[in-house]
């Protein structure tokens, strides 16, 4: 298994021409041949739905799968703030080059340059397409599109639909997908969970699913498999992800040979509602867009018990504005999160737990009036009030960082193809575009870029260039995958131990949050690794999964996902141990500058770490894709 060759397949030449050059050189599938190919799409968020719809429009036969009851409910729907595009509608100096550089720099120079340039280039087409779909983006009085600012940028390039941008973009893609169902070219399979990947003669040719209503196992075969199954943030149990988000599809593909890249790169979002009690089931994000108008502060005196509105200006520390005057409250997420943690660690935190800082709208309301603020953020304020019973129009919000997004994912080349031929990975599930930290409003951009404008081109060379003999469920590879998925479910149901699935998940989550969260160090990571192994062992001997396999069984669904998180978590910790530098969301306490900023080591760690599964309890093997920066030369990242 040492024949791994991590070539990106990105073409050379001038950066601005690479995507065009690549498209022009690619093999095509003629329209009358497309109907002969069947493409499997797993996951129906922005990346999956847009890919499924676009491929079916072109004439391919598509089968799409999601675990939710409807493709419209994928977690992309919860994205609030917006989507970036280099339209320069604000005449403030934006350009494709600038969006590219901002994204590379925001990612702390750990992303692949050619991919990021392509993303910036495609961004403008996404807006055109979504507007044509009838997505109700915010507009100015003159009827043209409005923009706002987001973290890590000094231009306004973020398009938005109130605080529900993800919802509106997803409903656009979902409508397009359902239109293809109507056309007969797309078959939708909701309430299906992918439990394994079928790799036949070295090529991804199908998946094994479980019907979550009846419990039946199914084998679906095709000519290509696209995973658009999101990130692994729920390994932390508490995150802003939806409860169902999981790593199972990616992890099963990893076990079948797809390399997993940079799993230690997780994004901790700075503005979330703080944790309240041990019963808590999830954390809620308050959109980064709030930092356009909200000011972040803590009291200057540790332990100041006065109500925030009673603390005078002279006793407040607007620490982001103080430390980063040129970006102020709009520093990137990793920087803002670390700064909040630092203030709280030093005793300046507020709220019952001391693990919170204020996000204050007093000045914005005074300046613009309550109705303007309501029009911009009304739904977010409403949501905050529902959760906390506090009214942010009158008292500052309390916020604290929480796990939000994962930059790591399955390794893909420039065609979004993994190390298993025929297996493509889109959206958050892949690793390629955000490096070690994603900028706000870039996830929607990447999901839709991959689905609408990259995969329709890059799947063709696979379909046209490889021999793909007919395959059906009787193929030995299908039978083997099916049997192993069935055996695993049977095993989970037969343990009949003492602990619930959730109790394992909570313990795992707390452990990785503590040791592999906002700050990591060598000793803590080693302890975590040891404990994860023990916990995994206990899980397989002491978990209790009630009910049967032949029916709707949510405990069983969760058990399979937690079992995979217990394997994945060890790799995440291992990757964090191996990367002895700080960059983006990966902060190793041993490697920081004098003023507590992340200290990169480009010479030693200027690579994407891609891990290869070895089976059983054997250590995974690390492969490295060196990252070369021809245009955006790495510098010490500064937002001061």
């Amino acid at each position, binding site marked *: 298994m040492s024949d791994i060759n991590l070539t990106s397949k990105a073409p050379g030449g001038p950066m601005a021409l690479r995507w065009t050059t690549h498209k022009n050189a690619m093999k095509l599938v003629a329209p009358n041949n497309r109907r002969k190919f069947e493409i499997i799409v797993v996951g129906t968020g922005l990346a999956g739905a847009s890919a499924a719809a676009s491929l079916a429009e072109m004439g391919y036969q598509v089968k799409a799968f999601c675990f939710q009851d409807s493709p419209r409910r994928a977690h992309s729907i919860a994205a609030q703030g917006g989507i970036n595009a280099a339209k320069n509608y604000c005449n403030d100096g934006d350009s494709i080059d600038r969006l590219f550089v901002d994204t590379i720099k925001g990612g702390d120079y750990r992303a692949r340059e050619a991919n990021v340039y392509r993303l910036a280039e495609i961004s403008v087409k996404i807006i055109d397409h979504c507007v044509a779909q009838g997505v109700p*983006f915010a507009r100015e009085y003159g009827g043209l599109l409005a923009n706002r600012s987001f973290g890590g940028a000094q231009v306004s390039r973020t398009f938005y639909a*109130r605080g529900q941008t993800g919802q509106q973009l997803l409903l656009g893609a979902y409508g397009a997908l359902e239109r293809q169902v109507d056309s007969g070219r797309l078959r939708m399979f909701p309430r299906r969970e992918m439990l394994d990947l079928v790799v036949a003669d070295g090529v991804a040719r199908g998946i094994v699913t479980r019907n979550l209503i009846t419990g039946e196992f199914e084998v679906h075969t095709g000519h290509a498999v696209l995973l658009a199954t999101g990130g692994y943030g729920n390994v932390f149990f508490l995150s802003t992800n939806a409860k169902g988000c999981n790593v199972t599809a990616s992890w099963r593909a990893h076990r079948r040979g797809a390399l997993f890249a940079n799993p230690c790169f997780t994004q901790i979002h700075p503005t979330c509602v703080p944790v309240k009690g041990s019963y808590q*089931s999830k954390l809620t994000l308050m959109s980064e867009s709030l930092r356009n108008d909200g000011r972040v502060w803590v009291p200057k005196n540790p332990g100041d018990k006065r109500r925030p509105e009673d603390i005078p200006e002279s006793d407040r520390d607007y620490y982001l504005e103080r430390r980063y005057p040129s970006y102020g409250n709009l520093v990137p997420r990793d920087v803002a999160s670390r700064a909040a943690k630092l203030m709280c660690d030093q005793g300046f935190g507020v709220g019952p737990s001391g693990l919170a800082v204020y996000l204050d709208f007093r000045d914005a309301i005074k300046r613009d009036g309550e109705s303007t603020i309501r029009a911009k953020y009304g739904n977010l304020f409403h949501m905050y009030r529902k959760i906390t019973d506090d009214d942010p129009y009158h008292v500052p919000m309390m916020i604290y960082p929480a796990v939000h997004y994962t930059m790591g994912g399955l390794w893909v080349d420039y065609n979004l193809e993994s190390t298993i031929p025929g297996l493509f990975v889109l959206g958050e599930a892949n690793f390629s575009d955000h490096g070690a930290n994603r900028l706000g409003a870039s996830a929607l951009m990447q999901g839709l870029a991959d689905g609408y404008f990259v995969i329709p081109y890059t799947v063709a060379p696979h379909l046209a260039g490889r021999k793909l003999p007919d395959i059906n469920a009787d193929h030995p590879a299908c039978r083997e995958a099916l049997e192993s998925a069935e055996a695993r479910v049977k095993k989970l149901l037969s343990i009949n131990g003492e602990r619930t699935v959730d109790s394992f998940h909570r313990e795992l989550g707390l452990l990785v949050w503590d040791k592999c969260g906002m700050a990591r160090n060598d000793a803590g990571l080693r302890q975590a690794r040891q404990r994860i192994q023990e916990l995994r062992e206990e899980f397989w001997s002491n978990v209790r999964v009630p009910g049967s396999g032949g029916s709707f069984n949510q405990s069983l669904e969760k058990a399979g996902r937690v079992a995979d998180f217990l394997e994945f978590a060890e790799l995440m910790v291992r990757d964090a141990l191996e990367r002895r530098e700080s960059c983006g969301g990966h902060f190793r306490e041993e490697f920081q500058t004098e003023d507590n900023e992340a200290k990169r080591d480009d010479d030693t760690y200027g690579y994407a770490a891609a891990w290869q599964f070895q089976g059983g309890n054997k250590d995974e093997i690390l492969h490295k894709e060196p990252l070369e920066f021809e245009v955006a030369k790495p510098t010490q990242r500064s937002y001061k």
Partner: protein
Amino acid sequence: MSGNLNLTLKVWRQKDAKSAGRFETYKVADISTDMSFLEMLDVLNEQLQNEGKEPVAFDHDCREGICGSCGLMINGHAHGPDRATTTCQLHMRRFHDGETIVIEPWRAKPFPVIRDLVVDRSAFDRIIQRGGYVSVNTGNAPEANSTPVPQPNQMTAMDAAACIGCGACVASCKNASAMLFVGAKVSQYAVLPQGRPERERRVLRMVAQMDEEGFGACTNTLECEAACPAGVKVSNIQRLNREYLRALFLGTGPEPSAED
């Protein structure tokens, strides 16, 4: 501010679509008023599993009020007693110590029960398949700012597009009417220039599918608006009726297709 509640829960249990259902009574103790309603059900489910029983099945995912997965009848109200609130955003501070809470699934013929509190809402997807989109293929869109949209139209479209597809409108309507759901989608595209080319075809096809699924008619009791967690207004039903009549009058019926 915080306090703890002891509650009696009467929960609908039903093995599957074919079996008969019944209420089961459970006690939960020491429930924090800061918990969400679904977190309270999580506590119940941990308790049931530790007693060796099967947990109560209910749909949920984002738990922040936007995915539309969750939906329970709580004391006879869709999504519970709060206005403009999904079940997942309902918090236990809304309840009193010692209270009995009755928890049921959505009850409507087009939404058959799958298990316990989980229902099948795929009828909504089939309605969307008949026209809940603008028929534009990827790749041929004009420049985004080439078609200005008056801000009031955009606001109206956004108000309608805020629908999360949870089905509370249907569950709260005595006729199990889906006209708020359909009206919201029809309205979004009726007021936008991008939706104009398919205006008549869309409304006729979506209404035909709505009828075929077995949803009832609107008799203006406005329960749907009261129950809607996304604040979708019944003015969308009025617009749906106008659009439908207009399309009938203009006579641009559905094109013949295999299904027709």
